[in-house]
């Protein structure tokens, strides 16, 4: 490409960009822009959630944009949201805290002053507030229910498969996971109630890395060859368990009990085919609808008190 042609292209691009930028405010005035800021933009379930938010938001007159990736860093998430607020690019947002929710307290206060609304995950106390707040809706995941459902599922599976006295490898969330304490305590309580004679022989922390979970579970199966059950707290851990049981030649539809929290397509297919006994899935579709409708209401009147919502849990059991 010659220098003159290149210059022409540059002028053309600049003119087009100028034309676009002049149309943006008009579009923004018609359609309020709201951002989606999860803990990471790379988690498959959250990518699906963004597309759902984008689609349903558009049907409700909201233009949904994706905030830059927080990449599990609370400081990055805070910085990204504050940039969107300061630049006047958004009228509201929906965030899933990348770390301790309290990091976003000052961001929420800044947004309140500017009349920008938010839906955040957790309770008012998590963010240092008490009760309902102007322009802020708190959407809490019922971690205890999630743990209870999985614990019940595992216990029922062992009893149904006549393995009530079986050895069990317990899955644990990685340190620092939001809701870890509530989920795991509720799981244990429900599991012990449903299968009181089962013996927990090992506990393994598994996060979002299938290969690592798989390696750890297979090693645990080596140490405890009679173990027949595992509970994954994520799709990755559950998938790792399936592969580990299979590759160790210890998977049997008659005796193995794998339960999982999460519920992507692959794990739900495994549940339908009987490989996974029970899946507790956070009903993000249901949550999506209530969140978008709430966000729409709050954008229309940022001075109103926000709501206290709860994310429903759906259970799929064989």
């Amino acid at each position, binding site marked *: 490409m010659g220098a003159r042609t290149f210059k022409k292209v540059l002028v053309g691009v600049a003119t087009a960009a100028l034309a676009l930028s002049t149309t943006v405010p008009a579009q923004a005035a018609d359609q309020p822009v709201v951002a989606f800021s999860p803990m990471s933009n790379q988690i*498959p379930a959250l990518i699906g959630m963004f597309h759902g938010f984008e689609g349903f938001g558009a049907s409700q007159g909201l233009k949904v944009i994706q905030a830059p990736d927080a990449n599990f860093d609370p400081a990055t998430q805070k910085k990204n949201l504050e940039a969107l607020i300061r630049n006047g690019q958004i009228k509201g947002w929906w965030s899933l805290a990348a770390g301790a929710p309290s990091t976003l307290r000052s961001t929420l206060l800044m947004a309140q002053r500017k009349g920008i609304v938010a839906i955040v995950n957790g309770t008012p106390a998590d963010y240092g507030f008490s009760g309902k707040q102007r322009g802020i809706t708190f959407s809490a995941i019922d971690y205890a229910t999630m743990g209870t459902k999985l614990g019940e599922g595992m216990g029922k599976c062992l009893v149904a498969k006549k393995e009530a006295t079986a050895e069990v490898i317990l899955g644990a969330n990685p340190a620092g996971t939001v809701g870890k304490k509530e989920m795991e305590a509720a799981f244990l309580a429900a599991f012990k109630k449903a299968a009181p004679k089962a013996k927990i022989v090992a506990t393994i922390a598994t996060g979002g*890395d*299938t*290969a690592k979970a798989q390696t*750890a579970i*297979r*090693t645990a199966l080596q140490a405890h060859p009679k173990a027949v059950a595992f509970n994954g707290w994520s799709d990755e851990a559950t998938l790792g368990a399936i*592969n580990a049981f*299979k*590759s160790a030649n210890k998977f049997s539809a008659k005796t193995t009990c794998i339960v999982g929290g999460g519920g992507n397509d692959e794990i739900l297919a495994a549940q339908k085919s009987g490989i996974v006994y029970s899946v507790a899935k956070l009903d993000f579709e249901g949550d999506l609808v209530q969140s978008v409708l709430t966000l729409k209401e709050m954008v229309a009147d940022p001075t109103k008190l926000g709501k206290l919502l709860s994310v429903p849990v759906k259970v799929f059991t064989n």
Partner: protein
Amino acid sequence: MKKFDSLSILVFIRSWGITTLLAMLLIFFSIWAAPVFGTLENFSLLLGNAAIPAIFAAAIAMGAYSGALDLSVPGTAALSSVVMAIMIGAGIDTVPAIGVALVIGIAIGLMNGLIVQTGLNPLAVTIGTLSITSGIAAIITDGLPLFDKMEKLEWLGLTDYFGIPSPFFVVAFIYIIGTIFLTKTRGGVRFLAAGGNPEALRRSGVNANVYRLLGFTLSGLIAAIGGVMNSAYTAQATPGAPTSVLFDGLTAVALSGLALSGGRGSLPKVWVGSMVVTVIGSGLLIKNIQPFWTISITGALLIAALAGEHYIGKAVAKQAVSKSTVSAHKEAKKAEVK
């Protein structure tokens, strides 16, 4: 009988330190985590568990040998594995799909090498490539994992042959071929020299750039093999670059005593480094010790190994100098007497 002086002991420790450490760990855990750890069955499992980290460690080592740390390894692995998964999902046979994944790895490595040869910083270039490849992998998959028909790869990632998990055979192949290349061929010697002393190579009339390019290409190829193996092992391909493999690989490379500035190092020791990390994790897991200990112990071991390498290296140099000074004095005295 040969008399061992302090210099030969120090040289032995420098040469065999990591292997001795692995042997000590195996003995320790065989006693402490008996009866499970010390079995043949568990040893074969350890070989399998160390396989994928060892492949990524080899990819990093190949870059390091030629004097450049290739940080694009996870991105290369992610992109090549998702392209392979798309092809398998579309009904294409696994072998050509794997072939395409490997070609992608080679192309990325070659691209890194060519860009670096223009004079840009290799770290910055490979970080940029990591972002580009991870981004493309996420774009073509819409960020979602691919698992359609991935069970076709079970023969490669989830099957045991002669009681040993299949990934180990891939590792053995890479490490044997790599070691033969580095130690038995002229190209291998030049390849190492390209990282350690490129100027000397240039003065002897050899184009060092060709060998640095080879380092990046091999790194890309092995990273792609790592991506394929990771997908075969987990029965899915994920677009997210597995950045934790960088840490695992770097740990194994550093434990092996390989200089990250290039020029020297032994590929089998990199495998031993991967085994050390795997053995610690496995032993503690069998004893049901909290997994967070594994992270801390591995980190402490890494610092101890680097410090040991540093001080033993210094001690060897000091002893060698004093020994050569003494022998020079002796020679001089002999000459005077004569």
